């Protein structure tokens, strides 16, 4: 299907058919019966990032439609094109027209459907119902609980679990071998450590580490993550805890302006770093409360700089209490 070879490895090595998917065996076998019977219900794919939800949807559609994939398949990302208008417009137009080829329905994948507003989900529910004959929906979400009940009850639910370390390692080695990249055990360990069960980030990390040249080791992996995950966040927290509020604020300014991070990005990063900090454990939970409060206020208020400045001031206070 791709006339030009994909250069992002996540795309180049994305499985094209269900038989290429190496994990999620149970899910894959159920999806295969859909292909055999040329019939399927609406589906809800839920699970953490990088566990193969979108890939499974793409593979299913490829296996079902073969050469007729193009006209019969539509992928929309709800967090980019959310709102009622999109549901009413694009989705309806796609869903109501007849499919091509021998499969009697089309497939519409709605990625990150948990980003849809309640109203949009209601509209979606009616659309799903009205056009069931010509179109099946696959909703892809991180949390199935964010989807309204009436939609959940109309869908077959598939829960994707995080990939096992073995599966991840095998995939990384496979990609490395095909790309002619030396990947040693320390490199694999390091990638698994920084990426958790997220295969997408794992492969991106591998590709970035390979771009340095030479073999991929723990050192090169940490070089990538050191730069790619703004170390500045940790530095900013450190400055605040030491009581250097002015410098911490300067760093904050850099993150927002120079790195172009959003305030929400910064808060989430702070939350992630929180538990790696070298402070007494009981303070971590307290700080998590403060971080959460600021996250919430940011959604209520509007000004990132004011909210984050308040957070840094709080860190400075905690720092003085710890007496570090």
């Amino acid at each position, binding site marked *: 299907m791709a006339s*030009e070879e*994909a*250069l*992002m490895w*996540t*795309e180049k090595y994305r499985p094209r058919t269900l038989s290429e998917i190496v994990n999620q065996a149970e899910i894959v076998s159920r999806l295969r019966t859909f292909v055999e019977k040329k019939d399927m219900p609406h589906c809800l794919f839920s699970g953490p*990032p*990088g566990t193969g939800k*979108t890939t499974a949807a*793409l593979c299913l559609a490829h296996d079902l439609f073969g050469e007729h994939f193009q006209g019969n398949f539509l*992928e929309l*990302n*709800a*967090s*980019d094109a959310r709102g009622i208008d999109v549901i009413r417009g694009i989705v309806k137009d796609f869903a109501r027209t007849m499919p091509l080829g021998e499969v009697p329905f089309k497939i519409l994948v709605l*990625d*990150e459907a948990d*980003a849809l507003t309640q109203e949009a989900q209601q509209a979606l529910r009616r659309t799903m119902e009205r056009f069931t004959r010509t179109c099946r929906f696959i909703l892809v979400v991180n949390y199935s609980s964010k989807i309204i009940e009436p939609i959940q009850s109309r869908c077959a639910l598939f829960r994707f679990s995080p990939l096992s370390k073995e599966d991840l390692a095998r995939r990384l080695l496979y990609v490395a071998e095909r790309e002619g990249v030396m990947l040693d055990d320390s490199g694999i360990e390091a990638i698994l450590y920084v990426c958790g069960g*997220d295969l*997408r*980030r794992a492969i*991106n990390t591998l*590709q*970035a580490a390979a*771009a*340095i*040249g030479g073999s991929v080791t723990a050192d090169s992996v940490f070089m*990538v993550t050191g*730069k*790619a*995950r*703004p170390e500045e966040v940790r530095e900013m927290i450190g400055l605040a805890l030491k*009581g250097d*509020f*002015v410098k911490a*604020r300067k760093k904050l*300014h850099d993150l*927002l*302006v*120079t790195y*172009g991070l*959003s305030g929400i*990005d910064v808060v989430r990063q702070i939350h992630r770093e929180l538990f790696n900090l070298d402070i007494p454990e009981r303070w971590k939970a307290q700080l998590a409360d403060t971080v959460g409060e*600021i996250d919430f*206020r940011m959604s209520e*208020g*509007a*000004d990132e*700089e*004011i909210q984050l*400045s*308040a957070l*840094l*001031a*709080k860190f*400075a*206070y905690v*720092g*003085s*209490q710890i007496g570090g």
Partner: protein
Amino acid sequence: MSRLLWAEKYAPRKVSEVVENRKAAERVVEFILNWHPDRKPKALLLWGPAGVGKTASVYAAINELGYDLVEVNASDKRSLDEIRRTVGAASSLSSLVKGGKRVILVDEVDGISGSEDKGGISGLVEILKKTVYPVILVANDAWDPKLAPIRDFCELIRYNRIRSNVVASVLAKICEREGVEADPLVLKKIAENAKGDLRAAINDLQMVAEGRRSITMDDLGVLSLRDQEKSVFDTLKAIFYGKSAQGMIMAASSSDVDYELLMQWMCENTWQHMQHPKELADAYNALSRADVFLGRIRNRQHWGLLSYVFALMSAGVSLSRETSGGGAPKYQFPSWVKDMSAARARRNALGGIASKVGEKCHVSSKEAFLSYLPYIKFIIEANPEVGAKLVKWLGIEPEAIEFLVSKEAAEKVKKILS
């Protein structure tokens, strides 16, 4: 008597008279001279802050080359219809021969509302597809997401703010021509005040100097920003040195300074008054609470809440002090306000990249931002050759790369791709 604006009277007539952004202006000339209907990209998009010579350099170029200029304002639907007719009528060969040397200038493209079908962005795209004349577009922010369809047709040329010593030297020349004797310090002050906007500086100069033989520092009182700053300082002092909560709240609510701007000033300067971490945390917490109320007002039009904003941002902040004395801080201009437009351009550009990546890699732009952009940045910086291929495959505009990676890496990639 019709009054001529000095900014127009002394606008550059020739490209060589364009200051600071002369290279960009020369590029405009090249573009017009070498243009043909199959050229790719088909149009120029000149972008940069206000008053730095974007439109002026187009005028200078066509004046020098002897072209006709058809100028439209993009946010005016009627004028776009007009252009569409002209472009349409001119697409036959006979009229091309007749039509001769003409340039179409579309000003303020970022002023277009995105959603309108006729006119608007899609109207412009249609024009760009069909045009048999060179088209030059002008915008403040080329990276506004709604301009994405237009960018595909354009070569981007960036205009920079004009350094204040350059501005001052232009002002000096104008004074000479107008027969005004001006203290260099005065001109320097006007130039700095304009923050890189030459047109604003010339307008300020005209306001101060027109009809006079000489100007001194005392004449600068009319300039508005100085007043604005002065009243911010007074307000901050009244808040931090006030005796009663009531007085502090009054100072905030009766200030000439817009309360949102005042919040920024408070955020930038509050720490100077708080010597103890506890005070610091409490003061900024009060500011944060004030901001929450402000958000509720914005979201729900609940203007009755405004009094809480004033109370929290003034007395709430100031009275967080238990032991800290007054001190005499030097208040600083909010860094945030200064960099806002730069930050917005950057965020828009990165957002554009993220959405391209998202399309290719089946993720939302939000997810692309987090789980692709950092790695792509790393790859480009570590290995520009590989990076350039990646940029091309992802369909990212080379000009946008400089917002993602270091300048050197961006230059290398652009070189490889050109």
